[in-house]
């Protein structure tokens, strides 16, 4: 059953993507539903199993490593798979309004959407360095396809830039994988972990793979492609890009540094990564503060928020791991909600230029409310998932006397407040002239409610962190204390 459920997570969306391409008209809805709806069921079952076993491994095609590829589901990947499924379903629901599967643009959209969620699951399950590369490629290409699905010139330009940098990042990663393979004779992450030595070569491999992934993760200073891409993508696509696509690259960096090189003791490297994160937080927030478009603000906010994920390295420890993972989760939900709300503003008011949005809260109260709610989690204010993450992060930073990190986390929160309230202030300002309320159709309401649902999920994450954190703790590889 385990193998069946895992296969369902990866192959069902891929098969559905194929069917969505082939089937005519209305039948495509069926393919889309068949590709996405079984995922939570399979994952629910797997989560139960994971709770009993602590770790699920399956050798794909029956060949164990080093020859074959091994799927490995632990607490961390389980949490991310859940996030992916939630995003795929809820954001997908939003997308259904704009990309009806039986219309032409839906014909382009849904196969990519399904491929993306399948690839993401495959990435999260994979324990094989080369297989990770392939899944990363698939994720990137599907994401880029989604980015240009509306064929807007800015999006296309951003997509080409993103494509090049992302593929370059892949190649760097691959170079590192080649080194690991040369050294260890295996591509399995966990087998290599026991063999790979922390010598010059091992370090080089690690650094290469890390740099490659940091490009994809858009960690400062390699973030250049992100704002244009996320800021110009169609709404649901921005949401999934920010919530998942960049995250999985960071996830891989975690895997490399904590699992592959977990016992290497390289404090300088860890601090370095932490500093990059810190710079990302400050720089991204400052940039967000001066942007003139809502979506660009949200995009730069992603640059900043990704920085928090890097703080795991200097704060190294179980609690920090739980904190950053939880941040990843709640930021995913909140950011998706924000992008969807911003997209709703953009589609219904025709602009997301800050200057033109005065008084938007009268016309679209639900979406403005969503922005504000999601903002609570982004700010790390209670009660929200972001708050739990921030609390735990601050707790370990204080416990270690890491005042720099404490400062960065706090300053990041304040700057986030600055840029978010800047948006909210405009939205709530009294408009010069208040035009008639547009009649909002059912589809419009659905899109707003989906965004609200995601924002509420981010808040709800602030109330029930215990089971998730417990699940995460089972995945922590390095023991209790740093």
């Amino acid at each position, binding site marked *: 059953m385990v193998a069946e459920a895992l296969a369902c997570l990866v192959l069902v969306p891929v098969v559905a993507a194929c069917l969505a391409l082939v089937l005519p008209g209305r039948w495509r809805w069926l393919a889309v539903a068949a590709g996405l709806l079984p995922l939570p069921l399979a994952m629910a079952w797997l989560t139960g199993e994971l709770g009993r076993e602590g770790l699920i491994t399956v050798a794909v095609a029956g060949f164990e490593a080093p020859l074959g590829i091994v799927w490995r589901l632990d607490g961390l990947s389980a949490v991310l798979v859940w996030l992916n499924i939630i995003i795929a379903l809820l954001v997908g629901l939003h997308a259904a309004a704009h990309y009806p599967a039986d219309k032409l643009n839906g014909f382009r959209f849904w196969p990519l959407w399904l491929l993306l969620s399948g690839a993401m699951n495959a990435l999260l399950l994979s324990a094989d360095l080369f297989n990770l590369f392939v899944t990363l490629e698939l994720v990137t290409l599907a994401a880029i396809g989604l980015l240009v699905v509306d064929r807007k010139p800015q999006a296309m330009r951003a997509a080409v830039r993103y494509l090049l940098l992302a593929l370059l990042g892949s190649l760097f990663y691959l170079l590192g994988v080649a080194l690991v393979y040369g050294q260890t004779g295996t591509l399995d992450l966990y087998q290599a972990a026991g063999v790979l030595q922390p010598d010059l070569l091992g370090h080089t491999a690690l650094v290469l793979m890390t740099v490659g992934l940091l490009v994809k993760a858009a960690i400062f200073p390699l973030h250049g492609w992100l704002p244009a891409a996320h800021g110009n993508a169609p709404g649901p696509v921005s949401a999934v890009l920010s919530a998942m696509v960049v995250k999985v690259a960071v996830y891989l960096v975690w895997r490399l540094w904590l699992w592959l090189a977990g016992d290497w003791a390289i404090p300088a490297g860890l601090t370095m990564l932490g500093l990059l994160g810190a710079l990302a937080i400050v720089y991204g927030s400052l940039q967000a503060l001066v942007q003139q478009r809502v979506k660009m603000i949200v995009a730069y906010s992603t640059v900043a928020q990704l920085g928090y994920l890097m703080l795991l390295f200097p704060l190294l420890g179980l609690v920090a791991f739980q904190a950053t993972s939880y941040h990843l989760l709640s930021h995913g939900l909140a950011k998706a909600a924000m992008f969807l709300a911003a997209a709703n503003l953009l589609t219904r008011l025709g602009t997301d230029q800050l200057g033109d949005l005065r008084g938007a809260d*009268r016309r679209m109260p639900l979406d403005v409310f969503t922005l504000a709610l999601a903002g609570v989690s982004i700010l790390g204010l*209670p009660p929200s998932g972001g708050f739990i993450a921030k609390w735990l992060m601050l707790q370990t930073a204080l416990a270690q006397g890491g005042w720099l990190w404490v400062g960065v986390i706090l300053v990041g929160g304040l700057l986030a407040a600055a840029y978010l309230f800047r948006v909210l202030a405009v939205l709530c300002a009294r408009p010069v002239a208040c035009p008639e309320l547009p009649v909002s159709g059912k589809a419009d309401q659905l899109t707003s409610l989906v965004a609200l649902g995601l924002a509420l999920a981010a808040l709800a994450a602030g109330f029930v962190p215990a089971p998730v954190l417990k699940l995460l703790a089972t995945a922590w590889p390095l023991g209790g204390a740093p």
Partner: protein
Amino acid sequence: MTEWLLFWLPLAVVLVSALAGLGIFIAGEHRPILRVSLNLAAALAKVVLVGIMGLLVMAGQVPEFNFALLPGLDFKLRADSLSMLFAVLSAVLWLVTTIYAVAYLERARDRARFFGFFSLCVTATMGIAMAGNLLTFFIFYELLTLTTWPLVVHNGNRESFAGARSYLVHTLGASVFLLVGIIWLYQLTGGQDFIAGGYLGELGLDQYHSLRIVFWLLVIGFGVKAALFPLHAWLPRAMVAPAPVSALLHAVAVVKAGAFGLVRLVEDIYGFELVQTLGLDLPLLLLASFTIVYGSVLALFQTDIKKRLAYSTVSQVSYITLGVAIGGPIAAIGGMVHLVHQGLMKITLFFCAGIFANLLGVKKIDQLDGIGRRLPWTSLCFTIGALGMIGLPPVAGFVSKWYLGAGAVAVGREWVILVLLASTLLNAAYFLPLIKRIWLNEPARAWPAEIDASRLEVFGLVGATLATTGVAVGVGLFAGHPLSPLSWVTGIVTDYFP
């Protein structure tokens, strides 16, 4: 049954206004009757629930709601005597303010937004009152910041945004200090409940340095909302908000939340004994004293009625801090009871200022000439409130000042009397000219912006004001009654200083 009630009641008390808020948002702008009835029903329900809870607490029960976010991180609502003091004040004043606000905003727009956030704001206040530990306190403290922001920007003009920005900069900046301080404390002791006399006593000498730092972090965190000098600058600027908001901010919600936090800090977290041991009481006392005088002096120079009231608040709220910083049971009583007394008096004053502005367009002090003849009832209320502020018996303010003075003498800090005296003189200096203008000066020929108010409006506005005035006088007159705030506070303080 009782167990069940004891567990869920605190949550119900907090949530009833939150649900009302949600209902108001959903009801929307165009269903005023539904909205208002929802609001009033919730306010009444809250008063009833708080009343039940008060009875339970008086019977020696401890209603407590507990929900573990994480091991060691509890979300805990608990009603102890101090909570009840604040909870009753909020519940009653919410009801009154709602009536006032319905009338006040009869002609305004965006009322759904206003009343929705107003309810949420009360939720946060109630949560602060009932918070059983620092984490819970922090959660609602931040919620309060977030929910008051839309109220401050309600008018949507440039000044309100400037005021709101200042408010946010101060409160969110403070929350940073607060958060660090709280997490630090959690590091030291784990998440412990508030307890009379504090729970930090068993920490060794080697932690004293940390404890001092944490104390000041928390003082900054609470001090901003309590408008302690030099963290008070946001308060006068936030005066751009509509009058009911100002009333709520000053009398109940924001400012009191800060002051309440300071009380919790000194009495229930550190315990006065430890504060004294650490040598923190005197600096706090000096800070409070300075704020009292400073606020009063600045109030003198204001020409805007609401601004003058605002600086008066800066000064008056510090009485509470003063009370807990002096130490000793008598001063503590004075401080805590001022929590209630100042609330009643200040809300009356703001209600009156709101009526002046709303009905006649009077906003400046020099426009007040002869208003007593035009609006006699309101002017009467204003006068009573002002006199109470000055400390004239039998209005509530007198009781507080008396206890504060006596308490200071009791612990041998006689110089505090001088501060109180100076403050009283200054109070008189900035309130008496107003009273003179209201009653004795000749009225101007036309009021700046007189409106033709409906009977309902007038009834709501003035009725609410009369009610608060009555209570303010009542709690002073019947201070000896066993149900009066004074008796209640005396009961609380005996826990602190057995």
